[in-house]
């Protein structure tokens, strides 16, 4: 079980308020991702749940029990750190066994659990090595192994993949998702990478300056962003945001349109501009269009075979039903 409830929690460092009053519920078995730009308080929020930081006020409950004053060791949560935080003086086996030893578990049971975790994570051949002798990906697996042997109420991941190279990151992303499918344990995952958030989460919590901007499933956030911040943050490349006269035509302060909802052609559309940089991904091409008179740059997604060149004048047609409208406070209309 791992239902985590935050009620009206705040966190201040000295006089700086990092987390203004905040409420959040994470359901049992849910894969929740905290996402936001750096300094948005997402790691602090995770550390408050872990108990590594004390809340300034408010209440943290785990499975209905008040855990606000419970030290991290007693919360029954496991954490995977960005730096892996393995014990460098212990073998992989001892690293994974450490939480079980701390729980004074029977040695036979410890061996059984360590070996089963090593089996799941493909670490069996490395059990007697030290962390220093492992690659980044293997170290991250050891850190995950150390977390899963305890069968915790919830897993906390603090940007676990940001030290890995791009290819490994995609692989580990799948492994963690796979692990969640198998264990069905609550997972809270902090990242600044919206692609990780979109691909892994059951529920995304978008944070800015300690505030929750929106909570919802990845597609909810993508299709109906509550404000311009979420609209701009979720989705890659970013949603195009247009102010001024064009927005006023739609009775809004700002309108947003995703790159895939603009059609690019030689002529005939209501908007026009000059092609700048084109990014060819093979399956898709992203055109950055300048001089549209709407925004500095508009990003447009087209098929891989569309071949406009730098400096070409093109015509753009937005899909009318895919427009997002926002008021002068940036809120969705």
């Amino acid at each position, binding site marked *: 079980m791992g239902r985590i409830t935050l009620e009206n929690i705040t966190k201040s460092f000295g006089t700086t308020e990092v987390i203004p009053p905040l409420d959040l519920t994470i359901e049992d078995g849910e894969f929740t991702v905290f996402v936001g730009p750096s300094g948005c308080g997402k790691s602090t929020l995770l550390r408050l749940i*872990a108990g*590594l930081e004390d809340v300034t006020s408010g209440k943290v409950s785990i499975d209905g029990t008040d855990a606000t004053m419970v*030290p*991290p*060791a*007693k919360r029954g*949560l*496991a*954490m995977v*750190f*960005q*730096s892996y*935080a*393995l*014990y*460098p*003086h212990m073998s992989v086996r001892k690293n994974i066994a*450490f*939480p079980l030893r*701390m*729980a004074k578990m029977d040695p036979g049971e410890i061996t059984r659990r360590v070996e089963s975790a090593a089996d799941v994570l493909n670490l069996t051949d490395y059990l007697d090595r030290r962390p220093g002798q492992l690659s980044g990906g293997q170290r991250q697996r050891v850190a995950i192994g*150390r977390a899963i042997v*305890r069968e915790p109420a919830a897993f*906390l991941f603090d940007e676990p993949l940001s030290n890995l190279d791009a290819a490994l990151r995609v692989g580990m992303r799948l492994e963690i998702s796979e692990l969640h499918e198998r264990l069905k344990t609550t997972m809270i995952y902090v990242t600044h990478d919206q692609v990780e958030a979109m691909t892994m989460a059951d529920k995304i919590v978008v944070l800015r300056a300690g505030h929750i901007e929106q909570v919802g499933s990845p597609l909810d956030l993508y299709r109906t962003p509550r404000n311009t911040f979420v609209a701009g943050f979720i989705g890659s490349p970013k949603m195009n945001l247009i102010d001024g006269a064009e927005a006023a035509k739609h009775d809004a302060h700002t309108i947003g349109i995703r790159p895939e909802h603009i059609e690019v052609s030689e002529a005939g559309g209501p908007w026009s501009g000059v092609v700048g940089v084109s990014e060819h991904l093979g399956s898709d091409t992203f055109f950055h269009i300048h001089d549209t008179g709407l925004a500095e740059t508009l990003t447009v997604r087209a098929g891989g075979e569309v071949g406009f060149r730098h400096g070409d004048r093109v015509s753009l047609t937005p899909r009318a039903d895919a427009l997002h409208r926002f008021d002068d406070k940036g809120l969705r209309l």
Partner: protein
Amino acid sequence: MARAVTPRRKAVNTALAWAVGLILFFPILWTILTSFKTEAQAIADPPIFLFFDWTLENYAIVQERSDYMRFLWNSIIIAGCSTLLGVAIGVPAAWSMAFVPSKRTKDILLWMLSTKMLPAVGVLYPIYILFIQLGLLDSRVGLTVVIMLINLPIIIWMLYTYFKEIPGEILEAARMDGAGLREELIHVLTPMAIPGIASTVLLNVILAWNEAFWTLNLTAVDAAPLTAFIASYSSPEGLFFAKLSAASTMAIAPILILGWFSQKQLVRGLTFGAVK
């Protein structure tokens, strides 16, 4: 690009390094050589460097006149115990300053270091009176405590610098893994800090071993360590250079050997944190 080092330049550098090393080591070398001379050769003018009648008689006389082993034992006890006691106090102190610093931590560290700038003789009188009142004069316990206190700032500073290098996330991981403060210190922090603790212990054994001011002033017979052993061969005996040198050589030999075998560890300890 790396700086190019020509063979010539390298040779000059090597020669310079040896020259500086020899100049620094020369007094010790001279003491050792003198200890093997007769008294007459020891004061010969011009001085004799290597071509004299090598003799062990000074060592025999010194051992006959005073019980070297008793002084040695006192030195070992005082240096060893004061270091262990200091480390036992220093580890928790450095831990709290490195991992749960307060606004005043930096000030406390500087204040502790400032006590090392106080001339020792300035507090000799009060400490002497205290020792008389507490019956600690000429006792190993008293000397151990005083020397421990004198070296404590250095112990805490060294351990603090080491602990600062240990990533806090590892200790947090231990906390998440269910370790209490005691388990965290025993299973995670201490094993990771072993090289640092070893350097600290080594340096402090040497400092305590060499400490002369307090050992000479607060001991007479029972607790007198090797520093007092050397001193007993100076002025009152007249200028018997050869015997004095023999006594000195015997006093510094153990620490010289210890230092020789642990020099790698020592250099690492003293320069730790300078580059990362």
